[in-house]
């Protein structure tokens, strides 16, 4: 069984410079603040649509995306806010999108489930479970054919592993040795269905065996563990020794979507994972480093809260599309 950290020992942080570590922290905090803020706005009724959020899973997005270059790409899912922020989309363009404004990253036409920004290395997220996996292989095929050194990191959930798209998409990447890292965020649930109800596998990374590729299961709430596993996988993929299937063990601290109260999650299980909150885990370790203290972290959090709040005020007033725009952007 993969060791799940209840503590990140500071020994594991040596060798990283503080700026880098603080950036990881900041990105995780940014995701949490964004998601909590959005949840409030949504429940309050000011934000339209539906939402799928990733509180509790911040370390997966941040750990993986930190191992990518700017011109690398990611694919994401209906639960994509964290991935987007970690890949460099701004809270502003995302809030504007959520409010359906023309200044949103998809001009308001995409919405929460289709966040993306090509110039930042994120194609619009695919909300069909597993649907982004073949896409990711094709993107990496393009990189390989064009002989760029880019790679794709492809995010999906535990639930996606039973889709045909998972099987077919990874098969292509495997036989053509494509530069792609498949990132399975196993948060134990696909919607309300616990993962052990829908697979006999104890480790989802064992799926790698049927593609003849390397698989690895990692503690997805330990951002350093994720980063290190991702860096290795990214390197292998970039060198043509991939693809790799990473399984990141994590937990969703919030509903599957909208107002879901998660009655299907067991109390003990919740508690166990809440005690292993990725931001707390990492924050605690950081403050044990000489030169970083709680004040600094609080400063980061405050800064982000303020930025978010300002962005909301703006987003709520951003111009909505005119009716003409209903029929634009169909054909290139």
């Amino acid at each position: 069984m993969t060791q799940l950290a209840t503590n990140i020992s500071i020994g594991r942080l040596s060798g990283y410079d503080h700026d880098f570590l603080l950036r990881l922290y900041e990105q995780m905090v940014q995701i949490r603040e964004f998601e909590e803020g959005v949840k409030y706005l949504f429940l309050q009724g000011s934000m339209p649509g539906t939402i799928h959020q990733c509180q509790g899973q911040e370390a997966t997005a941040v750990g993986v995306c930190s191992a990518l270059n700017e011109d690398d790409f990611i694919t994401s899912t209906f639960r994509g806010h964290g991935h987007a922020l970690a890949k460099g989309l701004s809270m502003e363009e995302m809030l504007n999108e959520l409010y359906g404004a023309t200044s949103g990253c998809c001009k308001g036409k995409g919405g929460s489930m289709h966040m993306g920004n090509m110039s930042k290395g994120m194609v619009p997220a695919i909300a069909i479970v597993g649907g982004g996996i073949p896409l990711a292989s094709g993107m990496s095929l393009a990189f390989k054919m064009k002989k760029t050194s880019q790679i794709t990191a492809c995010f999906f959930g535990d639930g996606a592993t039973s889709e045909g798209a998972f099987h077919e998409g990874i098969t292509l990447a495997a036989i053509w040795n494509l530069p792609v890292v498949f990132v399975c965020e196993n948060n134990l649930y696909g919607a309300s269905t616990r993962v052990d109800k829908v697979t006999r596998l104890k480790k989802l990374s064992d799926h790698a065996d049927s593609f003849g590729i390397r698989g690895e299961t990692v503690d997805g709430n330990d951002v350093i563990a994720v980063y290190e596993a991702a860096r290795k996988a990214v390197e292998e993929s970039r060198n043509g020794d991939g693809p790799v299937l990473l399984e990141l063990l994590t937990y969703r601290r919030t509903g599957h979507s909208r107002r879901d109260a998660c009655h299907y999650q067991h109390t003990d299980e919740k508690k166990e994972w809440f005690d292993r909150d990725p931001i707390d885990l990492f924050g605690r370790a950081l403050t044990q480093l000489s030169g970083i203290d709680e004040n600094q972290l609080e400063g980061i959090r405050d800064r982000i809260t303020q930025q978010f709040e300002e962005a909301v005020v703006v987003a709520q007033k951003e111009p909505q599309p005119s009716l003409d725009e209903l029929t634009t952007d169909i054909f290139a």
Partner: protein
Amino acid sequence: MAVAEITKRLSIAESLRQAITEEMRRDPTVFCMGEDIGVPGGWGGAFTVTLGLEEEFADRLLDTPIAELGFFGAGIGAAMMGMRPIVDVQYGDFLFLPMDQIVNNAAKMRYMSGGTVKVPLVMRAPIGATGRGSQHAQSMERYFIGVPGLKVVAVSNAYDAKGILKSAVRDDNPVLIFEHKLLYGSKGARAESGAVDATSEIPDEDYTVPLDKAAVCREGSQVTILSWLLMHHYSMSAAESLANEGIDAEVIDVRSLSPFDYETIGASVRKTGRVVIVEEGPKTGGVSAELAAGIMERFSENMLAPVHRVASPDVPVPFTPVLEDAYRPDPPRILEAVRKIIQH
């Protein structure tokens, strides 16, 4: 319904749930397969239709992995071996994934076996643009009409929903039932903003509603408005406004999308000579295309004006509410179309 019957007002989600319960009690070969349909503490499917049913039917509410091609195919296999499965997708948009199984296997199996195989499979799918962006929104009916061997129906109120689901379960052929997210009346965490009341009084007795009959929901003499699901409700409300303007519209809930009930539709068209079809979804290639062509072929000598189609523009469903609202046909657009056709 006779007045003496004991009735109860139910939403579509509730009446579907009742239909499933009653059919499962009646016939041990009936079972459900789908995602998140029977998880204790869960939602009873995406829109609460099977909520709580796992308590009575632990063995017949099969929560599947997210594998639509797989479990629709499994539904076909089970049906061929004498079971009567009810399978569903959480959003109609996902029907493309099992579509090979639906069209190439379920619908063709009887024919290609020379009539020796039966596939009594019920499929359910919610459709409708509801603030979720373009992959959880499109109208899917168009892709399944005219598939030989497949019956397609759409349920617009709780009474029909219950009766049609029962007919579908008892039918020996594959039946695809479309439902609309804004009509379920789902409650609690699964409530929908913009929902429309589609509740009905449900009699206590067992009843069925045929799979091949349209319903005249409002009689009128000057124009026939054909629609189904949400658009039927909008059409009814448009007809009320029209009445105030002195225009007498007949409103038909098409219900049977494949095959169509040209008997009921024809009787109306012969009377009014004018037809407006209202459809959610891009106009080009919609169900209305076949309806319009079929009506003009059959009843051209009765027509006082060409059939008029009110539908969405030819675009994917946009997320932003201001555009989504413009995408969805609404009562004002129906009014406008009727006024125009009346003047024709």
